[in-house]
C-alpha cells in the first residue's frame, strides 16, 4: 500500500478494500486460507448442546493507553464475557469501523495486538467486516467483536447463583484499567505503574470450573461501573445481601492516590481483567489458592461474603469500622473507557 493513512476508498468494496483486507487485516488476524474465505465462517465439529454467544463494541478514547490498546481490549473483553457464563471461547468475529485519515501504522499495531490477544487465549478470529467513515464521523477506530463459546460441563453459571454464606473473591487489584485510560487521555502525569489490567480470563475460569465445579456459584467481570456496580447487580439478581470488607480490597497505591486526587472511588472504576467469584465457603480457601497460582490472579483476595438476609443490598465495612451502602454507578464516572 502506497499510502500511510486510511482513505474512504478502503471502504468502497473495490480494489483498495481488497488490498487492505488481503495485505493487512486477514494476514494479521486470521488463519483462514484465501480459498476458504466465504461470506460466513463455518464452525465444524462442535460437540455441545449449549452455546454461549455475546457481542460488545469498543469505542475507547484514546485508542492507545498505558499497557494496551483498543485491539487487545476488544478481544479480551469478548473472551471474558463468554468465560463469565462458564463457556470456553471458540471463535470471534471482528467488525472494524475506521475513520478516514487513521494512520495505517496505528491500525497495524491494533491488529497485531488483537492477534496476540486471541492467540494467548487460544481463540480464533474467524470472520469480520471493515467499513470506513468520513473524517469527523467516527473517532479513529471503533471495534465490534462477537464471540461464540461452547460448554464442556453442565454447570449453570450466572448472576443469580449467589447463596447465603458464599465467599466473594476477586483475582487482583481494582480500578487499574479506568485510571490507565484516564491518565492517558488527560495526559495526567501519574505514577508510572498504572496500566490497564486487560487480560483474557478464560484460562482461569477453566481451571476453577475443572477443579471446583459446583462450588463456583457466580462469575462476573466488573468492567464498566466497577466492582460496586457488578456486586449490586449480583445482589439484585440473586436476591441476596453482600457485605464487603474495605481493608481486604486490593487497590494499587498509585491507583488509590490518583483516585483520591481526582475525587473518584476505585470501587466504581472499570476493570478489564478482573473477575468476581462467588464460591461455596468450604472451598473458598482452595479456590483462592488456585487463583493465586495463575499470573492474572497473583493478588487475588477474599473481599466479602453473602449474608443470611435477602434484600438485595450491598454493604461495606469500611477500613475504620464504619458501615456504608454500595450502589450502582450512576451517570458516567469516566467517559468512553472501553
Amino acid at each position, binding site marked *: 500500500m502506497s499510502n500511510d493513512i486510511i482513505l474512504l476508498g478502503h471502504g468502497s468494496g473495490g480494489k483498495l478494500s481488497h488490498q487492505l483486507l488481503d495485505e493487512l487485516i486477514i494476514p494479521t488476524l486470521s488463519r483462514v486460507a484465501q480459498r476458504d474465505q466465504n461470506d460466513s465462517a463455518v464452525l465444524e465439529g462442535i460437540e455441545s448442546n449449549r452455546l454461549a454467544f455475546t457481542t460488545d463494541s469498543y469505542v475507547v478514547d484514546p485508542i492507545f493507553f498505558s499497557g494496551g490498546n483498543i485491539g487487545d481490549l476488544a478481544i479480551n473483553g469478548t473472551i471474558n464475557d463468554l468465560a463469565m457464563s462458564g463457556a470456553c471461547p471458540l471463535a470471534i468475529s471482528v467488525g472494524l469501523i475506521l475513520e478516514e485519515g487513521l494512520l495505517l501504522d496505528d491500525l497495524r499495531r491494533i491488529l497485531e495486538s488483537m492477534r496476540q490477544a486471541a492467540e494467548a487465549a487460544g481463540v480464533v478470529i474467524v470472520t469480520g467486516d471493515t467499513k470506513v467513515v468520513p473524517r469527523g464521523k467516527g473517532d479513529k477506530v471503533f471495534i465490534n467483536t462477537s464471540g461464540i463459546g461452547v460448554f464442556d460441563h453442565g454447570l449453570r453459571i450466572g448472576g443469580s447463583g449467589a447463596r447465603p454464606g458464599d465467599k466473594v473473591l476477586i483475582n487482583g487489584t481494582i480500578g487499574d484499567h479506568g485510571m490507565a485510560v484516564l491518565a492517558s487521555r*488527560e495526559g*495526567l502525569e501519574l505514577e508510572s505503574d498504572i496500566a490497564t489490567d486487560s487480560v483474557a480470563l478464560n484460562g482461569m475460569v477453566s481451571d476453577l470450573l475443572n477443579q471446583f465445579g459446583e462450588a463456583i456459584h457466580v462469575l462476573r467481570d466488573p468492567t464498566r461501573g466497577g466492582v460496586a456496580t457488578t456486586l449490586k447487580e449480583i445482589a439484585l439478581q440473586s436476591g441476596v445481601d453482600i457485605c464487603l470488607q474495605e*481493608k481486604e480490597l486490593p*487497590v494499587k*497505591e498509585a491507583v*488509590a*492516590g490518583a483516585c*483520591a486526587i481526582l*475525587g473518584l*472511588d476505585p470501587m466504581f472504576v472499570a476493570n478489564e481483567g478482573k473477575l468476581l467469584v462467588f464460591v461455596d465457603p468450604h472451598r473458598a480457601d482452595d479456590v483462592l489458592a488456585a487463583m493465586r497460582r495463575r499470573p492474572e490472579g497473583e493478588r487475588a483476595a477474599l473481599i466479602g461474603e453473602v449474608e443470611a438476609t435477602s434484600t438485595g443490598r450491598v*454493604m*461495606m*465495612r*469500611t*477500613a*475504620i*469500622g*464504619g*458501615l*456504608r*451502602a*454500595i*450502589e450502582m454507578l*450512576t*451517570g458516567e464516572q469516566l467517559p468512553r473507557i472501553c
Partner: protein
Amino acid sequence: MKYSSEYRDPQLAAAMVTAIAAEVADYAGTMVLMEVCGTHTMSIYQHGIRSLLPEQIRLVSGPGCPVCVTPIRYVDRAVAYARQPESIIATFGDMIRVPGSSSSLLREKAMGAAVQIVYSPLDAVKLAENNPGKQVIFLGIGFETTAPTIAGSILEAARCGVDNYAVFCSHKTMPAPMAVLTADPYLQVAGYLCPAHVSAVIGAEAYRPLVEEYQVPCVVTGFEPLDMLRGIQLLAQQVVDGRAEVENEYQRIVKPEGNLRALEILRQVFEPCDADWRGIGPIAGSGLRIREEFAAFDAERRFHVAVEEPREQKGCLCGEILKGKVTPKDCPLFRRGCTPENPVGACMVSSEGTCAAEYKYGC
C-alpha cells in the same frame, strides 16, 4: 502517598470512637456538628463515619459543595453563553450536569454547543490560545480553594496577551455563610468542622472572628477518616467543656495565616462582593468579583446575552438541605423524581453534593 493506610488505621479509629463516646456520655440532648466542605460530606459517607458515632452527635452537611451553592441563574447564563456560536465553555466536570431553568450545559453540548471539561483553568487558557477565532469562557465557581488558580489563569492570559479568554465568575468565600447559619435559631449548630482545602488558603485564624462573635467552636479538619474522627472529638470536647475556640486538627497542611502567596494572587485579581447562595440567599461580602483592571477577562462585562427568568424546580429541597435543616431523605423528590442520572437539584449533581453522597453511600 501513604494516607490510605496511616490515616485509616482501624485500631486508632476504634480508640477515637470510644473516646468520642466517653466524651459525650453525659451530654443531654443532640449535639449538631456541621461541616461546610463537600469533601468532608463525601468522606463522612464514604467511610461510614455516622455509623460509628454515639447518638448524641448529629453530623449535618452545610453549604460546602461549590456546584450546589451556585444559583440557578448562573447556570441559565452559562447556558446562554454556550448558545453563542463563537463560545467555547470550559468548566470543571460537575457543572455540566447542573439543571438550569430549562436546560443544562450537558444538554447544550448534546445539541452541538462547545462545552469542554478541563482539570485546570490553565488548560482553558491553552484552549483559548489554540482557538483564536473563538471566545473561551471559563466557569469560575468554587471557594478560596479554586479561586487562586483561576486568578492565576487570568494573570497568565494577561501576561501572554490571550484576549479571547474570559472567566464567568461566581466565587464564594468562607466563613461568611457560617455566621448566617450560626445565627439561625432553627439550626442550633454546636460546632463546625472547618474545611480543609479552603483553610489551607485562608488559614485557621480566619475563623477567629466567627468564634469570638458567636461563641461557636471551630475545628479545622482534614479529610482522612482519622482526621475526621479527631476533629469531631475536639469539637465534642469544646462543646462539653463550654469552650469556643479555633483549633487546627490539620496542622500538617493548614497554617494559622494560610497560604500567603495564594491569597496575594487572589486579592490581586478579585475583590470581595455580595453573593447569592443557592438555598441561603444573598450574603454580604461572601463572594469574589474580578477587579476593574482585569475587566477584559470578565465574561459578564464583555458578553451581553439574553437570559431566561430563573425558575426553581417545584418540590426541590436543595435550599433547605444546603442549610442543613433537612436531610435528603426528607425531600419528596429524593430517589423518586431526583436521581444522579436525572437530577432536579444541584445537591444531586455534584459528587460532593449531600444528596448524591446519600444516594451513593447512604444506608
